[in-house]
């Protein structure tokens, strides 16, 4: 351990009176809240209607297939994963440019970050989707993608990108999300790079490594270890921000949930179920990152 790690905490593992009182207070609060809600809210709970939108029994193939809500979940997952990959690329490149010696690169990356960070995601997606993508995408020929063609209608395409007819919207949503989150990842990466001691740079250059090798072998590995916690938080934020993509007709989980809630009029059941699905998705990411952090700590002795 070096000077920079904090001293270990003494974690108490036995339960005392104080703990029991706390548990009691929390339980009391929860019971009271549930009781008040049931008392005040006149609502006939009916879960079967909403659960029916999770999976349905397909008579043709005689099997349980996914229905709207699960399909929405897959779309959200696709959106989140592709946007994560893209956002990481934007973030790392721009983060490096923020710390570069070259003035132009610094200006470009700083402009990118400040423009996007100071705008709410909803406004950004409206601007991007209605003005930018509606002008650029037709010019690039993405709107005319042949949805009956061999590649577009293949199972692989559907697995990776979803419905080929909604591909241009999906692309717009993905790029928008990636651009938006990339700005925050840029700052996180910049902080990671700048927090690496200057001594590491100087020592690495002194033994003859090129700037690229210094970055790749010495600085970035140390920076990554430091930025894993905020990076995990940012990726989870990305998953939650994907709900905003429902504004541009992507059939992701939030959009489908509004349709199901409107059709069945079971508002609370739908949203509680969808909240639970988002929780599972985000918590899995959080667990994954916790695992990555533990691995990184191991190599730190």
């Amino acid at each position, binding site marked *: 351990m070096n000077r920079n790690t904090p001293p270990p905490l003494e974690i108490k593992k036995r339960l005392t009176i104080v703990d029991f009182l706390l548990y009691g207070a929390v339980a009391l609060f929860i019971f009271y809240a549930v009781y008040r809600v049931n008392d005040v809210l006149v609502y006939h709970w009916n879960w079967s209607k909403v659960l029916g939108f999770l999976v349905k029994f397909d008579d043709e193939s005689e099997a349980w297939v996914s229905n709207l809500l699960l399909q929405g979940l897959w779309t959200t997952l696709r959106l989140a994963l592709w946007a994560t990959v893209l956002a990481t690329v934007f973030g790392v490149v721009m983060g490096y440019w923020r710390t570069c010696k070259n003035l132009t690169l610094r200006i470009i990356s700083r402009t990118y970050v400040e423009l996007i960070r100071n705008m709410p995601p909803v406004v950004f997606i409206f601007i991007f989707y209605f003005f930018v993508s509606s002008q650029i995408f037709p010019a690039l020929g993405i709107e005319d993608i042949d949805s009956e063609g061999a590649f577009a209608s293949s199972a692989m395409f559907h697995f990776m990108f979803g419905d080929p007819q*909604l591909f241009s919207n999906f692309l717009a949503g993905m790029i928008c999300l990636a651009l938006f989150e990339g700005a925050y990842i840029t700052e996180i990466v910049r902080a990671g790079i700048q927090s690496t001691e200057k001594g590491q740079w100087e020592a690495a250059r002194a033994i003859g490594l090129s700037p690229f090798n210094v970055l790749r072998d010495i600085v970035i590995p140390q920076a990554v270890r430091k930025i894993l916690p905020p990076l995990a938080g940012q990726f989870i934020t990305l998953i939650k921000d994907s709900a905003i993509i429902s504004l541009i*007709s992507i*059939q992701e989980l939030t959009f489908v949930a509004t349709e199901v809630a*409107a059709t069945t009029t079971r508002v609370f059941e739908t949203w509680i179920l969808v909240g639970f699905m988002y929780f599972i998705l985000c918590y899995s990411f959080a667990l994954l990152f916790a695992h990555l952090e533990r691995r990184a700590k191991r190599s730190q002795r």
Partner: protein
Amino acid sequence: MTISKIFKTLTLATLLTLSGNAAADLLTDIQKRGVMKVGMATFVPWAMRDKDGDLIGFEIDVATKVAEDMGVKVQFVPTAWSGIIPALIAKKFDVIIGGMSITPQRNLTVNFTEPYAHSGQQMAASSKLASGFDSMDDFNKSSVTIACRRGATPCKAAQKLFPKATVLRFDDDAQAFQEVVNGNAHGMISSAPKPRFWSEAHPGKVFLPFGSKNLTRGDEAFALRKGDHDALNFFSNWITINTSNGWLDETHAYWFQDQSAWKDMVAPK
């Protein structure tokens, strides 16, 4: 003339010619593509999801028939209502068939066809707070609270018909209705036949103070991008024909009169 002046004139001329040609050909585009893209939003019973996840409803039937008569397939693009007009202008789909009421403000940005349905606003009232209320004056008091979905015609109707009452705005019809059921609002205004469907689902707590008479009469039409008169002509005439031969009224009655005809399609087994 100098080179730059010649250049500027040429560019202007090209742009004008191009833009003139680009505007008029929606019908040709649809027929070339073989698919008519229709923008709509989920709104019971205009458009909703059945238990298999497919779209059903009055709008769906209308759009399917229009596409059939045009000889093309139909593709639905479910869109959030607040972004549906910008999406139409950005060419994400060809026409909005979504029970959109004709208003002058909307008409400044999009073209409307002839009306194909006349819905209206209806009121559902709380049995607890508004029992015995059965006239407009009963509700037009400052002690009365009326809930509605904001941004759309219901809230405007609420303000206009009951100027003295307090108007509570919500993002969603279901939320506005929940206020009445909870006994926090005297009544709520929404497009018929939703209030009637909801009052049937909560018999003791909610009733229709004015029976099934609507408070206002609205005109719903298809919305198209500005500049294309040929498409407007085609859709308007389609509506006129199908009003005269009764198909529109028949289909409207099937979905709006009462829920029994299609209730089973929506509720899972």
